[in-house]
């Protein structure tokens, strides 16, 4: 089978786009829950202005840091960026395994929404411009957005054209979640957050392993085609670990 260079680059491009999209989806869902709570309790002008201001700051960070990173020769940053992506991906994969095994609680958007609305109702009524609404919305968008910015910048630093692909994935996720938020006006509790974390964890762990390897001088068999093999290997390992963790925890509970 003759796979051209374009085919190999497309593998990296689509993996980057998918990883940025899925990871951003998770973060956007969490931010939307709080922005919806702020808007419904304190009013929409402050909530939307806070979210918009934070998005402006985050876009400015990507615009400033992204192009600067892509100008640095790839081999100089590949190791560092690869290690960061690897740590990030492995952390998500570990958490997703433990959640799927029932050892730590799943993230509950309905509960987070109820908790936030209760806290905001108890904060008193603002006269005029609601600074609390602005600050609450700004903070959550900045917090969740920082993770998105890291993912976009780190994935985008991996080669020419990847910054555009990573940014496109993140913007697509933001638009999709914003559209769903406007249409439904309630938290997106049915988004399978842990399944997404599983997938993103596998994708990022694989990309991180690949980049660290390249940075260390490893010649991967099949070049970029090693990426899907690594993704499959991480996901298969994680899926095997879920029942194993569950049975191990049950065995310990019976002994105790």
């Amino acid at each position, binding site marked *: 089978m003759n796979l051209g260079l374009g085919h190999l680059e497309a593998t990296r491009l689509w993996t980057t786009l998918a990883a940025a999209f899925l990871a951003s989806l998770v973060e956007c869902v969490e931010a939307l829950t709080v922005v919806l709570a702020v808007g419904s309790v304190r009013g929409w002008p402050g909530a939307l202005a806070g979210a918009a201001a934070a998005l402006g700051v985050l876009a400015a960070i990507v615009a400033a840091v992204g192009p600067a990173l892509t100008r640095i020769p790839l081999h100089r940053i590949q190791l560092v960026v690869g290690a960061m992506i690897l740590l990030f991906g492995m952390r998500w994969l570990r958490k997703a395994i433990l959640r799927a095994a029932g050892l730590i609680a799943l993230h509950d958007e309905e509960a987070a929404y109820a908790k936030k609305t209760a806290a905001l109702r108890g904060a008193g009524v603002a006269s005029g411009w609601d600074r609390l609404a602005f600050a609450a919305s700004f903070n959550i968008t900045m917090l969740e957005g920082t993770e998105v910015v890291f993912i976009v910048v780190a994935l985008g630093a991996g080669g020419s054209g990847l910054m555009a692909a990573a940014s496109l994935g993140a913007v697509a996720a933001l638009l999709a979640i914003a559209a769903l938020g406007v249409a439904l006006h309630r938290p997106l509790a049915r988004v399978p957050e842990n399944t997404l974390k599983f997938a993103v964890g596998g994708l990022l762990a694989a990309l991180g392993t690949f980049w660290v390897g390249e940075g260390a001088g490893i010649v*991967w068999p099949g070049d970029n085609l090693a990426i899907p093999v690594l993704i499959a290997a991480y996901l298969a390992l994680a899926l095997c670990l879920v029942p194993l963790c569950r049975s191990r925890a049950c065995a310990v509970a019976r002994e105790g």
Partner: protein
Amino acid sequence: MRWIKSIAREVVGLFVEDGSFAGAIAAWLVVCLAALPRLAASARWAGLALFAGLAAILIESVLRFSRRR
């Protein structure tokens, strides 16, 4: 200033949730970086060794957590 601290905490939290897990990964990467250039003759196996170590760290970490619960 409080939100800046929150963001700094969030940024560290991006990479480190369980200190021993993140530390083991970092240590394995250091070992690989030190050892792999000396094993250039078996470069085909270097990628497999890198992945195998990371997989072992993941397995140990989640099983250790399971025993604790």
